[in-house]
């Protein structure tokens, strides 16, 4: 931990390279990022070779943004949200409404959904972040379902389209020219790459360090006088913004807002992607998103509607046997070949509660709750 602090605190010159790089980006990062960018940008080509189709690449990139943001909350901070559909769906609806009623240009749509998601995230954060663990998961799930119920309600039907979703949107344009499928893909990819850079920098930044400390031991952090709630809120909001961005892009990719964007299944899908790919690794959830959509679109052609059942079984098996997800598979393989791997804590540890919670528990005289 101290090593990370020093590196980020010192900044400036990075050992071994003669040039001054931004504090939080090392040469290794640059290599990773270039490889990542090439992999993403060439996806339409190699995905087709794997049996996919070009448009699937856009969808994968969008979901990858969603999963990446989710990992900032779950992987870095240790909060399992079951309500990220609330942000994805809200942004999708706001973008849809803007495209329908305001302008076909995507910039005002995205700006508007950015603001709305920010407000929603702050409100939900205030309500849910005072709890951790199980409580947080249940509450986020409940409030997302509330948003879903509200959108489907007969009162809002005139605006949201009710069960049919929001249809009849203008085809999205940018600066007056209509967006082609290709340009949508490159916009999404650029945002994914930028989002990945941001997430990597965030992970190494002092803020990221705080978030990881929250995951490790929130109570101890609180004892040192840190305003833990503010950091949790920051992680929650950043994560929600990624989800909102993805929701917005989804509607730009396919000008139609499905009600399922707000449904718990969307939250569930992002959870599944992250866990399958490897929580806390940033690249894992991105890979998980690709795997899941590939599975949905390509494997479905072979086994039909049962792909969801198979996916569920794979998910359960991974939770049981490989809590680190596919990212761990790579590490295990590397180790088997004689490579050296740094030990990494599997999955999310139990979060100790707040100081207040602990004090009350001590008064009751039972401390066994935190033993595992």
């Amino acid at each position: 931990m101290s090593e990370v602090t020093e590196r980020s605190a010192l900044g400036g010159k990075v050992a071994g390279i003669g040039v001054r790089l931004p504090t939080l980006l090392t040469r290794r990062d640059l290599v990773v990022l270039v490889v990542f960018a090439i992999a993403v940008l060439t996806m339409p080509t190699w995905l087709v070779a794997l049996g996919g189709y070009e448009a699937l690449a856009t969808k994968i990139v969008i979901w990858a943004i969603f999963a990446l943001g989710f990992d900032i909350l779950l992987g870095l901070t240790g909060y399992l949200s079951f309500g990220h559909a609330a942000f994805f769906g809200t942004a999708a609806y706001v973008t849809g409404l803007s495209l329908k009623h305001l302008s076909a240009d995507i910039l005002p749509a995205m700006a508007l959904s950015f603001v709305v998601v920010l407000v929603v995230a702050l409100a939900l954060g205030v309500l849910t972040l005072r709890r951790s663990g199980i409580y947080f998961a249940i509450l986020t799930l409940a409030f997302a379902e509330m948003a879903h119920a509200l959108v489907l309600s007969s009162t809002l039907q005139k605006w949201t389209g009710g069960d049919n979703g929001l249809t009849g949107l203008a085809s999205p344009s940018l600066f007056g020219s209509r967006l082609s499928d290709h340009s949508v893909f490159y916009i999404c990819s650029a945002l994914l790459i930028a989002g990945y850079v941001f997430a990597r920098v965030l992970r190494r930044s002092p803020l990221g360090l705080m978030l990881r400390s929250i995951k490790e031991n929130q109570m101890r952090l609180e004892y040192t006088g840190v305003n833990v709630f503010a950091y949790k809120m920051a992680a929650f909001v950043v994560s929600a913004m990624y989800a909102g961005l993805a929701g917005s892009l989804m509607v730009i990719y396919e000008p139609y807002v499905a009600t399922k964007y707000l449904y718990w299944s969307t939250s569930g899908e992002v959870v599944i992607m992250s866990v399958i790919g490897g929580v806390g690794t940033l690249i894992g959830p991105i890979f998980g998103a690709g795997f899941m959509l590939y599975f949905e679109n390509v494997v479905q052609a072979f086994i039909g509607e049962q792909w969801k059942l198979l996916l569920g079984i794979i998910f359960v098996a991974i939770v049981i046997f490989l809590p680190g997800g596919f990212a761990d598979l790579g590490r295990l393989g590397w180790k088997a070949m004689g490579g050296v791997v740094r030990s990494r804590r599997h999955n999310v540890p139990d979060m100790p509660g707040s100081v207040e919670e602990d004090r009350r528990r001590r008064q009751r005289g039972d401390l066994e709750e935190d033993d595992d």
Partner: protein
Amino acid sequence: MTINSIFLMLVTGLQLGAIYALIATGLTLIFGTLGVVNFAHGALYLIAAYAAVVVSNELGFGLAIVLVPIILFVVGIAMERGLIQFFYRRPHTDQILVTFGLAIVVEELMRWIFGANNIPFALPAWGSGQVLFYGLGAVVPEAIPGLRIPMPFVNGFVFFPAWRLLLIIVTMLTIVALFAMLQFTRFGLVVRAGMRDPEMLRFLGVNVTQRFAIVFGLGALIAGIAGVFGGPVTQVSPPVGMALLVPSFLVVVIGGMGSMFGALLAALLIGMSLSFTTGFAAAAGDPLLKDILTALQQIVIYLVAVVVLLIRPRGLFGKKGVFE
């Protein structure tokens, strides 16, 4: 708003609360003793509802009432022994994830076997029809069939579906039986002790593991009862499990996690708030008011949860210090 419609709203509220109460009781039982939040509890309800349809079609409804809870008890024990027990030592998030995954697997399995649509659940002859409540001095025409129950303050007479009334009664009996078991039997004593301090219980030489498997089975059994009697009311289709699980979670949270009595009260609160907003929305004359009430009806259970959690974060009867 007449006295009769208020009476009907009360009974409807009881009926809506009844299903949530049954599912939430099972959740609370499992959470309180085992510390596991069972995201697959809605899936247990789903299994029960489908099992009830199959058994009642093949062997008659009477047997379904007996068999389905037993089947679910076995399913519950199998689930605990086969999967959940390996997760007691794992983080809470893993427990949530694995039960969530299981819920998806069950839902998809049901979709595969029985199709995505609602399958009809025929009521037995003795349970269909309406029950009639009549007030003082009401003249009820002889021609109207069905059970008649005197209800002094009702003006004239009102009808209520017999099956829904049965659901309320069955729920009450189930919960009374459960409370009696927890309060007056040796097994119940051990379970209650386990809810307070499982470690101490283990030190005292009680085989906690074996009993906890039974507790999980019991939670599943209650979901089984809910499935048999609730199935005809809720629908029998794959999404029903999750649709019931979310409000039941809220019931548990509002009541205070781990508190049985709190869960009951919260279920009642949610049932009533649902039935009253629906009733008022239906009765509202002003279109704007009607619109607002209809929207309110969709989200009222969440609003109740928000209010309770803001005022009393640990829930109505939450134990001090537990998930506060």
